[in-house]
């Protein structure tokens, strides 16, 4: 008799869902077994994905053609990551782990540049532009929205942005009694900012809770459906 892969998937899914849900009665060995297996399996799966989808196409496959049929530049281009990989493998040995810092420096440098560009081009400029655009009468007219309504909403958003940023301003001067205290205006803005942050986190909480509830209902539904098969 041949067991279908769908059935095996269903049985595994049912079993692991039950084991994880057992946490509702408290931390127990069944939950721990499921979690440790999950961590092991996920790490193994991720390692195989890295091997086949990152290292094989970008490192292993181009090496032989580049070394035997490529120009000097092509050889250099493929040798550098091999060298970096060897250096980073030195991290396994405590005695040689210092050599790995060369590759780590390379990764940190590249990563720092990517996050600088990402923060600037991907967040700061678009978010500031979007806040400014609230006050553009031409954009409001193009979207056929009442200018007063747009301006009012834009003012709320602007106050929210400024006061939230003020809340995260931690520059303070020492008072006569030695205790540090923020400038009075910053303190006032920070208080308003707390209200905006509370509202924002409340909306995020509601969204995450709704998503978690959906996942919970889907899992319970899958358990009921599994029994429906038999």
């Amino acid at each position, binding site marked *: 008799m041949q067991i279908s892969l769908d059935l095996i998937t269903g049985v595994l899914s049912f079993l692991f869902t039950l084991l994880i849900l057992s946490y509702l009665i408290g931390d127990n060995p069944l939950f721990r077994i499921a979690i440790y297996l999950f961590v092991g399996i996920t790490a193994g799966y991720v390692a195989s994905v890295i091997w086949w989808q990152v290292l094989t196409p970008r490192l292993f496959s181009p090496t032989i053609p580049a070394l035997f049929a490529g120009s000097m530049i092509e050889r250099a281009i493929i040798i550098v990551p091999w060298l970096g990989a060897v250096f980073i493998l030195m991290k396994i040995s405590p005695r040689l782990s210092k050599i790995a810092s060369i590759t780590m420096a390379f990764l940190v440098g590249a*990563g720092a540049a990517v996050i600088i560009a990402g923060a600037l081009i991907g967040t700061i400029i678009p978010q500031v532009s979007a806040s400014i655009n609230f006050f553009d009468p031409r954009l409001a007219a193009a979207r056929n929205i009442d200018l007063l309504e747009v301006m009012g909403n834009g003012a709320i958003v602007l106050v929210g942005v400024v006061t939230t940023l003020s809340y995260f301003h931690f520059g303070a001067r020492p008072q006569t009694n030695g205790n540090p205290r923020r400038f009075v205006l910053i303190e006032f803005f920070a208080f308003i900012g707390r209200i905006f942050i509370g509202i924002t986190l409340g909306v995020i909480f509601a969204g995450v809770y709704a998503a978690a509830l959906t996942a919970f209902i889907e899992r319970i539904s899958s358990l009921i459906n599994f029994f429906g098969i038999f």
Partner: protein
Amino acid sequence: MRVFTAVIAIAVGLMVLLGYFFAGFVGIQTLLLNWAIILAGVASLVGIFNLIAVHTDKIRRAEKGSVYSALLVIALVATFVFGLILQPQHQIMQVILNGIILPVEATLMGLLTITLLYAAIRLLRRRADVMSIFFIITAVLIFLGSATLPTGDVPIVGTLIRPWVSQIWALGGARGILIGVALGTLVTGLRVLFGIDRPYGGK
């Protein structure tokens, strides 16, 4: 060695950064980022190897909970070997993905329902300040506004207040938090590029 690693980090960072703003540096930027992807992949494998080493050490010392560590190591090695032989797209690997990894992730997400509710109640009991009060009021308003009654949306709350709060008031706070995080990220990146912070080793 400390100066050498700092020079590498600064030089690589500057060349990658220039690639975003000047077309002449795009070629070198692509090459460096390709190398960075390869090295990040190798670093991840070293990290996974470290996970095996830590748990193997726990098993060797017969520490408390070493049975769980043994399960973890066996599951990790078996999945990796299967993945190497069969490749991740193979049917059996898809059974592992759809039968274990995704259901466990979804169930853990579902368990958040209980833990989030518990955390929200604890927040009100322990810290009833202006932020937590607005947090709870907003969350309740959003829930009420999202709920669908047999007669339809909850009047005013669902049609007027919820969209206004979530699309205007929360937008202001979210934008402030996002810009704040981005400014922090920018400064952290610049500190690395100027050699002030050296997380790769050295002072």
